[in-house]
C-alpha cells in the first residue's frame, strides 16, 4: 500500500476527515491494493468516536490539541465528531460510547435561572 496513504490515515482527527479520506481511497481503489485498503478502511471505521457539541468553530490547533489530549487520555486514536452549536454558550456536551454528559454553560445558566425562579 502507498506509504503516503498510511501516513495520511494516521493524521485523521475528525469525522469529516475520515469521510473525506474514505471517499478518496474509494476512488483510488486498485485491484492489487484492494485487500490492504479494505483492511485500512475497516480499521478506520472501527476507531472509537466522540461527539463534541461546542459553541464556537474550532481552529486546526485546537482540534490537534483535543485529539492529542483524548488519545493520551484513552490510550488509543479517537475520531472527533464536532458539532458547532452556539446555544451551548460555552463548555461542551460530550457523548462517548452511548454515555452523554452536558458540561455546557447553557446548562449552568438554566440551573441558575431555575434556582432563581424557585
Amino acid at each position, binding site marked *: 500500500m502507498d506509504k503516503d496513504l498510511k501516513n495520511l490515515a494516521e493524521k485523521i482527527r475528525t469525522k469529516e476527515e475520515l469521510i473525506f479520506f474514505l471517499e478518496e481511497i474509494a476512488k483510488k481503489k486498485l485491484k492489487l491494493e484492494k485487500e490492504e485498503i479494505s483492511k485500512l478502511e475497516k480499521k478506520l471505521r472501527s476507531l472509537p468516536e466522540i461527539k463534541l457539541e461546542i459553541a464556537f468553530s474550532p481552529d486546526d490547533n485546537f482540534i490537534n490539541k*483535543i485529539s492529542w489530549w483524548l488519545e493520551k*487520555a484513552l490510550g488509543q486514536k479517537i475520531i472527533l465528531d464536532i458539532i458547532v452549536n452556539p446555544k451551548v*454558550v460555552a*463548555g461542551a456536551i460530550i457523548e462517548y460510547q452511548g454515555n452523554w*454528559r452536558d458540561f455546557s*454553560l447553557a446548562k*449552568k*445558566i438554566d440551573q441558575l435561572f431555575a434556582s432563581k425562579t424557585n
Partner: protein
Amino acid sequence: MVFNLTEQNIFFIIFFILAVLIIGVCISILRILRKEKRGAFRSTKLQPQPYSANELFLRASESFKKQLEELVKEEIRKNIGNLKNDFQKTSEEIIKNYQSQFESGNQEIQKVISELSRQATEEAKKVSGALSEKLTQKFSEIYQSVEKTLNNKVAGTEKEIESYKKERFEAIDRKIYQLLGEVAKKTIGKTIDLSNHEKLVIEALEKAKKEIF
C-alpha cells in the same frame, strides 16, 4: 279576376263615359228638335200662319225650352247618377282589387318576415353558440392565467415570509446569544473569548474523563 288599372286607364274610362253621355244628350236634343219641326211644318202647310199663331209658337218654344232644359237636366242627372254608380262600382272594384292585392302582399310580407325571423333566430343561435364557446375558452384562458399569477404571487409571498421569518429568528438568536454572553459574564465573572472557550471545553473533557471515559 285581376285588374291592372292605372291612372291613365281610369281617366280614359271616365272620358269615354262622359263622351257617351254627351253624345246621348245631343241625340235626344236632335230628336226633340226634329219632332218640333215636323209639327210646325204640318200646321203651316194646312193653315195660314197668323201673327198670333207665331206668338203661340214662340210661347210654345218657351215652354219647350223649359221642357227641354228639364229633360236635359233630368238626362244629365240620370247620367251623372249612372256615372256615379259606375264610378263607385269601378272604385269599389279597384279598392277591392287593391285590398286583395294588399292582403296577398301582406301575407307574402308576413311569410317573408316570419322566414327572415326564423333565419335570424337560427343565425343568432349559431352565433350565440360560437360566441359562448369562444367566451368559455377565453374565460378558461383568463382563469388559468390569473390562477398562475396568483400561485406565483402566493409562492413569492410565502418565500418572502419564510426568508423574513428566518431573518427574524436569526436576529432573535443573535440577541439571545448576546444576552447569554452577558449572563455568562455575570455567572462566571468574565467575558468568553476564544481562549476561555477552549479552556472550558478542556475542562468539560476532564470532567468527562472522570465520569465516562
